[in-house]
């Protein structure tokens, strides 16, 4: 195979090709700023990846071709099958899964590097040992954390927060143990113990499990985004260890992107990242069983009434939420919008930043249902329009429309930016029941005089409304 081996590892030619590769990543992401260029951007980034992979395969001294082909073959087959079969609603768990295997790869590479270094018996330079330790720990946390996130989103394990008593203490002890082992390994860098490193990977794995298990299903997007940042950083650390500039730059880009997305989501929920990770929010009803007990007066309507209200409006704003994604009602909602547009009603969609199970997830679901990109309005864009809107239809959204966030400074969600549907002339809420949303608090919107409740499954209700409008 020496015919193929034309590039010196760490040589100028290989590095130059790696530079081309990461430049293509940056260009690819830059093209992702607009939906018309984003697809090309993704192809550009993929081309960069192909260059990086081929460059590595051409490095002088590479061997074990049978195993390389085997690994590439298995990975490609799994990737192709999974990606072509996955439903758009399942996108968050797909990203979690891919993120997990990436983190797993980093942890394995770190382990292998430690073994390799020890077997050569040379003194481990700290500037390669420290990145290896970092990569191992973060990679392992990310692998297990992502797998738990995947299992929760896929309903393989209960999505409700699972926490043992004294969870925080256990986590803290684990974290301290991990830090101590890291220090011991670094101090003993003349001959680091492989057993100790494996123990480190195991402890990090347990920590990854314990940190993610107590987090509720609705907070998973934040977790996935954070773990995405972690995997990126661990890849960058592996780049430090392997002196590979492509890994450093690409990993760091992902680290930045994951960090930005995590912070944006936390802001959109008006909570800090540490609050999301450690509070077990939503586990115990914060407001003492908000929905239970006496029922406040509310107006309940059927699909036909809703159809009439909508059909004779001039402008309608649809506010989709998590419940729409769960009910897979995006196509049915599009039917309603189509019927309304046929009658000359202006229909827009108001997308809260955390609607769906991932930031921007609702946009993907609606795009899948062929909703034009121009009709998807972000929160800041639609709120000033609300007072000029005839009917706002809330489908499977709850906390993001709760006026208490604006009016009641004592509310647990006080200060959270909301879509101000109560400003509209009329509000129709399609929801299974009056039960409180994820925040565990009652939604005042349901009891306002201009609000009508339509108690039904989002998908069934939307199909029915579309049919009723068609019959009018």
């Amino acid at each position, binding site marked *: 195979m020496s015919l193929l081996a034309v590039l010196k590892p760490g040589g100028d030619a290989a590095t130059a090709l790696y530079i081309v590769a990461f430049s293509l990543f940056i260009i690819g992401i830059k093209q992702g*700023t607009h939906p*018309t260029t984003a697809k090309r951007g993704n192809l550009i980034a993929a081309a960069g990846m192909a260059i990086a992979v081929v460059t590595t395969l051409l490095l002088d001294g590479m061997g074990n071709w049978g195993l390389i082909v085997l690994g590439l073959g298995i990975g490609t087959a799994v990737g192709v099958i999974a990606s072509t079969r996955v439903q758009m609603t399942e996108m968050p768990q797909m990203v979690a*899964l891919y993120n997990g295997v990436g983190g797993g790869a980093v942890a394995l590479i770190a382990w292998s590097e430690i073994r390799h270094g020890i077997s050569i018996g040379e003194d481990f330079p700290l500037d390669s040992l420290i990145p290896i330790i970092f990569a191992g720990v973060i990679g392992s946390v990310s692998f297990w954390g992502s797998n738990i996130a995947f299992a929760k989103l896929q309903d393989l394990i209960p999505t409700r927060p699972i926490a043992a008593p004294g969870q925080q203490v256990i986590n803290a002890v684990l974290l301290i143990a991990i830090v101590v082992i890291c220090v011991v390994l670094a101090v003993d860098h003349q001959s680091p113990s492989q057993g100790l490193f494996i123990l480190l990977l195991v402890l990090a794995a347990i920590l990854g499990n314990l940190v993610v298990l107590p987090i509720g299903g609705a907070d998973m997007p934040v977790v*996935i985004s954070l773990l995405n940042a972690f995997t990126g950083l661990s890849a960058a650390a592996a780049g430090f260890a392997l002196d590979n500039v492509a890994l450093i730059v690409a990993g760091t880009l992902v680290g930045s992107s994951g960090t930005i997305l995590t912070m944006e989501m936390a802001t959109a929920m008006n909570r800090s990242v540490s609050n999301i990770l450690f509070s077990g929010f939503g586990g115990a009803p914060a407001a003492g069983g908000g929905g239970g007990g006496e029922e406040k007066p509310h107006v309940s309507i059927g699909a036909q009434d809703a159809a009439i209200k909508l059909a004779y409006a001039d402008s309608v704003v649809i506010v989709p939420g998590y419940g729409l994604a769960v009910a897979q009602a995006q196509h049915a909602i599009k039917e309603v919008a189509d019927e309304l547009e046929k009658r000359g009603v202006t229909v827009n969609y108001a997308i809260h930043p955390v609607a769906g199970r*991932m930031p921007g*997830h609702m*946009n993907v679901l609606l795009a899948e249902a062929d909703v*034009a990109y121009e009709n998807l309005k972000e929160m800041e864009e639609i709120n000033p329009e609300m007072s000029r809107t005839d009917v706002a239809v809330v489908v499977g959204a709850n906390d993001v429309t709760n006026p208490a966030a604006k009016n009641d400074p004592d509310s647990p969600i006080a200060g959270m930016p909301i879509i101000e549907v109560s400003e509209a002339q009329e509000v129709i809420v399609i929801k299974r029941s009056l039960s409180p949303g994820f925040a565990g608090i009652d939604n005042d919107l349901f009891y306002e005089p201009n609000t009508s409740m339509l108690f039904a499954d989002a998908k069934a209700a939307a199909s029915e409304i579309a049919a009723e409008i068609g019959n009018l």
Partner: protein
Amino acid sequence: MSLMTEITIFVLAVFVGFEVISKVPTTLHTPLMSQTNAIHGIVMLGGLIVLGFANDGLEYVIGTIAVAFGAINIVGGFLVTDRMLGMFSRKPKPQSKPASSASRPGAGGSDGGGS
């Protein structure tokens, strides 16, 4: 490469990352996350190097798994992003006709509905 050179690259990449990514609109955040997720599949290069230079049984196993994991991450990540973005670039059927007729004076749409 010296450590300081690598740290320089790292710090610059942090700024480039923040600069480029903060310009992506919320609408496209799911594909963005999916695409950056595919990009960290670059760790497969590490797996390839480990496997390509491996010389004992356990290293073969670790390396092969690492390469397979990396390949899932890369291939799956880019493909699924492509599928998602295909939905955004797909041209919606020309349904804007009735909507634009409604903008005519007299709000013909709702009048027509009333009759």
